[in-house]
């Protein structure tokens, strides 16, 4: 009998905060809203920390209430905590709490302040449900819920048309992924009779090889990957994430960098028992991840919007995580997920601080030379940039290096993944330092900022009279302390977060990933008779050297092109011609999708479903039958003459006919 950890409190606390702020926040002062939002999300974080101290008890299953019972099939509201969900739990609550703090400063002057924090807490609730669920259905609740919260927060400035449609785009694209996820769940119910992680994985690892290889697990794996691709913005469903940058920057940091978009990675890692036995599905995961990493990184190079660069960088880093999962190096993927949450959360928050400083400007071409004006932001962002570029000893170095090494050395790995991964690492370093140089070095290229008009909806000036966070609105200014504190904490984490080291992290997660090790190792032996294991030691050091060199090369190129010789990029762009155009326009993917999927869908809906079926069939049936009834009545109503004797005549005639009929029937 394990002691009760009261896991249910962790997601419910933010939900209570969301409810209080959502229902009553309108009447609260800003300070009260902040107290509620920070109080409940902070309590969840504290709770998660306490649970982490009880780590020796893991795994813990906490059954709250039965939910669905149909025959042998049963789903419960139940939470499950093991090493994997503990890592996610700490990342979500920790980074989430920091971003809550940051948002207080960032959103202070916005209308709908309480609404923002209610949504943010609601998001925390769903994300924690997703992470803690003990079966796929509870996970799916969280999965859908974070989609909802993401939609609400992307469209937070809903009066802005682009924000509203970006929210819709995110939601709809996610639905496509969710569809795949749902079908995977149905397949599991049909073939395994359960959605419980433990039970499903037990059945899966017990399946005989000929059943396991016969497409069932592969199709479940692929469908799960469709879901993951939707949520985690992988090819071909990544298109919503760049648009999602319409949301407030803290939202981009929390949902679209640190936590929600990593849900797909978590789900794949969680379902490792299925993927382990479906090598084809695993290969698809690796290929999609690798391609996405490369593809998004190339787009990132040419973006000029500071948040868009970070968005494509997020997609690219998520690609790394899937690459890791795809070579069955789940712990490396989760390790990168964690460090990425630190440094990408930091980068977004710092970018928010930059945008804040220059008065809502997001175009990097109109920034520059900011390092003297906003030193705190500059130094924290520098930490983040070095971390994502993969310089030792920053956090990103350890996780990225682990992924690249595993991509080559894993039994499922290949030098192709590694090569593309290293090239992407070079690109990553290049575009991140491009951002860094463009933003912080050189001369300031923008006009003097004049407040927040560009990006933000405005509250009346007097509403910030009681603001405890003083804002200088004249000139470039450093952000208030409440925004800097999370930046500094995240910067420290971005520097030190990787010092745990891959080995220790791997060992920590091993109860989750190697639980069914027997079936797993047999499968490996059958699937890949490749030279195993590839030699460690010196070659690993060589690989590390190469990836660090790639990062340094990126730094050097960015320095050359955007600091030393700022006219060079234009010449190169001219030389590249059409290819450059294609990259700037994101390979026209949005346009292609619009032409191939969106337009036929809209046209089909308009012409066939609306004008054809709805108007000409359904509406027409109703209208015509009503019209027909009216026309018939028009004729028939003349029988109602009001003349009593004519009525009597009709009755008599009717009676006569009836009697005649009866007589005729009787005499037959």
């Amino acid at each position, binding site marked *: 009998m394990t002691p009760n950890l009261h896991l249910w409190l962790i997601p419910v606390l933010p939900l209570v905060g969301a409810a209080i702020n959502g229902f009553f926040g309108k009447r609260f002062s800003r300070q009260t809203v902040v107290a509620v939002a920070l109080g409940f999300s902070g309590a969840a974080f504290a709770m998660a920390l306490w649970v982490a101290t009880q780590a020796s008890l893991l795994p813990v299953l906490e059954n709250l209430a039965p939910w669905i019972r149909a025959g042998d099939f049963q789903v419960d509201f139940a939470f499950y905590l093991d090493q994997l969900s503990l890592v996610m739990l700490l990342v979500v609550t920790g980074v989430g709490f920091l971003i809550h703090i940051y948002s207080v400063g960032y959103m202070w002057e916005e209308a709908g302040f309480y609404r923002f924090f209610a949504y943010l807490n609601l998001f925390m609730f769903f994300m924690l449900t997703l992470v803690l669920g003990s079966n796929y259905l509870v996970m799916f609740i969280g999965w859908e819920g974070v989609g909802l919260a993401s939609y609400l927060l992307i469209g937070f400035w809903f009066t802005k048309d682009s924000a509203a449609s970006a929210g819709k785009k995110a939601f709809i694209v996610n639905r496509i992924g969710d569809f795949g996820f749902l079908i995977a769940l149905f397949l599991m119910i049909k073939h395994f009779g359960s959605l419980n992680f433990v039970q499903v994985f037990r059945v899966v690892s017990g399946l005989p090889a000929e059943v396991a290889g016969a497409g069932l697990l592969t199709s479940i794996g692929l469908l799960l990957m469709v879901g993951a691709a939707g949520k985690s913005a992988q090819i071909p469903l990544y298109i919503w994430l760049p648009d999602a940058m319409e949301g407030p920057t803290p939202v981009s940091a929390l949902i679209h960098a640190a936590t929600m978009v990593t849900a797909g990675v978590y789900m794949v890692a969680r379902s490792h028992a299925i993927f382990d036995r479906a090598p084809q599905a695993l290969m698809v995961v690796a290929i999609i991840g690798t391609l996405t990493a490369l593809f998004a990184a190339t787009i990132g190079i040419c973006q000029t919007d500071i948040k868009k660069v970070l968005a494509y960088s997020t997609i690219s880093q998520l690609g790394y995580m899937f690459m890791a999962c795809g070579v069955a190096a789940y712990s490396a993927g989760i390790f990168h997920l964690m460090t990425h949450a630190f440094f990408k959360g930091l980068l977004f928050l710092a970018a928010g601080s930059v945008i804040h400083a220059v008065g809502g400007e997001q175009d990097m071409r109109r920034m520059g030379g900011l390092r003297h004006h906003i030193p705190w932001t500059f130094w924290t962002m520098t930490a983040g940039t070095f971390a994502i570029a993969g310089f030792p000893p920053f956090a990103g170095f350890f996780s990225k290096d682990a992924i690249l090494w595993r991509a080559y050395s894993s039994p499922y790995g290949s030098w192709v993944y590694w090569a593309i991964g290293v090239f992407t690492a070079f690109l990553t370093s290049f575009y991140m330092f491009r951002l860094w140089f463009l933003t912080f070095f050189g001369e300031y290229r923008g006009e003097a900022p004049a407040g927040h008009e560009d990006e933000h909806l405005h509250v009346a000036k007097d509403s910030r009279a009681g603001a405890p966070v003083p804002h200088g609105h004249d000139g470039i200014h450093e952000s208030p302390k409440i925004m800097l504190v999370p930046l500094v904490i995240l910067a420290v984490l971005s520097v030190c977060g990787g010092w745990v080291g891959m080995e220790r992290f791997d060992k920590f997660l091993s109860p989750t990933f190697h639980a069914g090790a027997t079936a797993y190792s047999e499968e490996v032996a059958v699937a890949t008779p490749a030279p195993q294991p590839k030699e460690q030691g010196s070659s690993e050091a060589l690989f590390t050297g190469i990836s660090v060199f790639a990062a340094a090369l990126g730094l050097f190129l960015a320095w050359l092109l955007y600091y030393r010789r700022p006219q060079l990029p234009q010449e190169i762009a001219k030389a590249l011609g059409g290819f450059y155009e294609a990259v700037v326009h994101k390979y026209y993917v949005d346009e292609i999708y619009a032409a191939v999927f969106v337009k036929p869908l809209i046209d089909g809906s308009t012409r066939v479903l609306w004008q054809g079926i709805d108007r000409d069939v359904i509406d027409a049936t109703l209208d015509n039958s009503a019209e027909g009834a009216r026309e018939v009545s028009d004729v028939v*109503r*003349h029988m*109602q*003459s*009001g*003349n*009593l*004797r004519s009525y*009597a*005549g009709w009755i*008599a005639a009717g009676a006569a006919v009836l009697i005649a009929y009866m007589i005729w029937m009787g005499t037959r």
Partner: protein
Amino acid sequence: MVPLSYYLVLSGILFACGVAGFLIKRNIITIFMSIELMLNGVNLSFVAFAAQWHALSGQVFVFFVMVVAAAESAVGLAIIIAVYRTRGTLNVDQVDLLKL
């Protein structure tokens, strides 16, 4: 003993007279009397059958019909008085306000 058919023919004639009077006459009171005539025609056939088959139910029916007819004439006469008060006429052709 008078054969059954005689009663039935008389009953038919009475009923036909009632129908004819109902259709032809315009005065509401005359129409009302025609209804009574039809009822009594039917009553006659009931008692004739009852006597023929020595079954009491026919007689019981007649009592019911007479009771209902009495009640109906009370209500009907009240309506006729009400119609006369409001419309000032007992001609059914002029009492046709319910038509479209």
